[in-house]
């Protein structure tokens, strides 16, 4: 096996293979337009919602056909990223990745500024969420939902363990864990296989521990410099020492099946889980009878002693949809504005059992736990984006894995910050 020969052959082929790209245009001469639309709802009501919405839109705009592709959430990022490489075959309207990834896409010219094309209604109704899709004062996406995080719990199991008030501080949370264990109930469900659910514990602790200034410093690419980041890791290590998580949490997935962490909560096999506001919808799908969990409660992440973060502040995400530069802009924007209409946003909230991005549509939220969240949303300053989304996938992945490592006893608390800073340097 002579490497030289291989290399020489390869180079000659490489020159040969610089094939001309052949792409198709979306707009045909007869005014018919096809919109390729990518989202990540592959099941149930969410999938049906998009199908119905697209059909209704096509009815109103006879010249437009919408080609839907629903892609499994865990594959979504990889597929979208590769598809956007080639503008000719990229999707026209797609669910954006958010945070640092959207910034990278703006830089690569893969998503367009839609500031001046958003309808007046949408601008007014989305006031609280448009900020998440705004970079340098330009809007790059139409929000559809808002998912603040917090701890979701079974009121029945809490009662059984003799916990009367949802914990407000880490100390109270520790007491709750002790009581639940005494009552032979698994205190916390954790989907460690997907890593991010475990990392959310760290994100929240650092969110309570660090000041807003520390967070914005980290987001600007300077790394995790302040001392509070290490303090949060120590806090998590101490919490983990009390063995609060379900058995085998390392191979428990977050949302797949009755054995997943959400499944454990839905089936009352664990008392609580730290998650985003998509949780009620997920629990509904995983409950034995397919109905919403009747005793579901919510409390925001507890405060920590001496923390510099605002104890009322919430962290979460805003899901929004963006347009690629090769899309027929007029039709794509009509579709986005249609999504944002209050009536459709109400449908969205029902289908997903979550918060619509449109303020005017929030009246349809009936789930008691979600209504509790709404109370806290009103108290909270601007919602902080999940730390991993904010930092981009390389630092995010490093954080996620190092947190799991620490929980499993394979790394020290200080390794978390080191790993994140190394990754920021690597990317």
């Amino acid at each position, binding site marked *: *096996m002579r490497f030289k020969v*291989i290399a020489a052959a390869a180079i000659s082929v490489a020159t040969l293979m610089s094939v*001309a790209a052949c792409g198709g245009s979306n707009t045909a001469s007869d005014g018919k337009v096809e919109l390729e639309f990518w989202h990540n709802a*592959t*099941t149930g009501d969410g999938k049906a919602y998009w199908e119905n919405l697209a059909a209704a839109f096509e009815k109103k705009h006879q010249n437009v056909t919408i080609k839907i592709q629903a*892609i499994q959430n865990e594959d979504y990022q990889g597929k979208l990223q590769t598809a956007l*490489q080639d503008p000719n075959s990229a999707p026209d309207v797609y669910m954006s990745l958010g945070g640092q990834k959207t910034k990278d896409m703006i830089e690569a010219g893969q998503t367009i500024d839609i500031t001046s094309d958003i309808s007046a209604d949408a601008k007014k109704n989305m006031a609280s969420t448009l900020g998440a899709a705004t970079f340098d004062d330009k809007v790059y996406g139409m929000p559809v939902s808002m998912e603040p995080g917090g701890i979701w719990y079974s009121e029945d199991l809490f009662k059984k363990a003799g916990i009367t008030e949802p914990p407000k501080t880490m100390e109270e949370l520790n007491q709750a864990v002790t009581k639940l264990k005494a009552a032979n109930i698994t205190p916390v469900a954790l989907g460690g296989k997907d890593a991010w659910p475990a990392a959310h514990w760290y994100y929240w602790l650092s969110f309570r521990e660090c000041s807003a200034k520390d967070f914005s410093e980290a987001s600007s690419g300077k790394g995790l410099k302040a001392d509070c980041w290490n303090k949060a890791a120590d806090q998590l290590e101490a919490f983990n020492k009390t063995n609060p998580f379900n058995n085998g949490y390392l191979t428990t997935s977050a949302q*797949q099946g009755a054995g997943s962490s959400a499944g454990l909560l839905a089936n009352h096999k664990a008392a609580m889980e730290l998650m985003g506001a998509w949780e009620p919808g997920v629990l509904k799908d995983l409950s034995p009878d397919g109905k919403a969990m009747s005793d579901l409660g919510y409390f925001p992440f507890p405060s920590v002693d001496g923390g510099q973060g605002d104890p009322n502040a919430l962290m979460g995400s805003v899901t929004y949809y963006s347009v690629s530069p090769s899309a027929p802009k007029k039709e794509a924007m009509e579709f986005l504005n249609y999504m944002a209409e209050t009536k459709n946003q109400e449908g969205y909230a029902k289908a997903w059992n979550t918060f619509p991005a449109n303020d005017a549509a929030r009246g349809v939220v009936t789930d008691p736990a979600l209504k509790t969240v709404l109370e806290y949303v009103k108290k909270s300053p601007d919602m902080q984006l999940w730390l991993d989304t904010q930092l981009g996938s390389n630092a995010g992945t490093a954080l996620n894995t190092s947190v799991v490592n620490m929980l499993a006893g394979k790394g020290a608390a200080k390794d978390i910050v080191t790993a994140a800073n190394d990754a920021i340097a690597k990317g």
Partner: protein
Amino acid sequence: MSSAVSYGRKDKNGYRKSPKNPWGNPVVYFISLLLIAICIGPVVYIILGGFRSNAQITNDPAGMPNPWLNKNYLAVLSSNTFWVELVNSVIVGLLTTIGVVVLSLMVSFVIARYDFKYSKVMYSLFAAGLMFPMTVAITPLYLLLRNLGLANTLAGVILPQIAFGLPQTIIILVPFLKTIPQELEEAAALDGCSRLGFFVRMVIPLSMPGVATTGILQFIGSWNSYMLPLFMLSDPSKYTLPLGVQMFSSQHSVDTASVLAFTSMSMIPALIFFTIFQKRIVGGLTGAVKG
């Protein structure tokens, strides 16, 4: 030649068979049964699981179906998804196999039977392909296929699979073709057969055992291939069965029994195919490993 010797000739590798017991050693059977249990146990578990209900699985993960339910399997069989994915898998599997076998046979013939300067280089080049898993080249491969307009098509899976299947097949076929005696070729030449004529009339029929082996291995490889379809195909109507299994198990994540039923159905065609052709595998490999 005594009858004892000719009798001994039949049983292989020195196992002394007692003529009184035509069944052979009971220990052999016991070990064989144990071996089979280990090999097919998990597969049987999956198939049986499809006959159970979710409650049965949750309450007793290791139990037998009680009662036996066939609704999971009926649901799979009556779903369009399964059949579409089955057809896709068959198309991809057959075309990949044919492509790999035809191209490899041609190039292996050149490497094995032609005396020319670059024969060794060519062989090394293909052999080096073994060192490179498809995972590694997936992003550039995807971009290339997109540029060729083949992303999200079955051809976009078939063509790279053919290319990545070549090294293994060539490595098995070249020694195989070398074992065809030189005299045959000379005889063919005397009869006025050209080299190509020799290839078509003699080499192809003679290499059938090797072709069968590599063909089966390629077909199974394609049937099970996961990474490439995962990255190439985004339209569910083009999914192959492994992707289908993945998608089905995430869509019906609560419904373990249905997932098991779907999973069983997706492996059964490959098992049947293999059962039919398994005899040929050993034959083809004999030639290859002898070399």
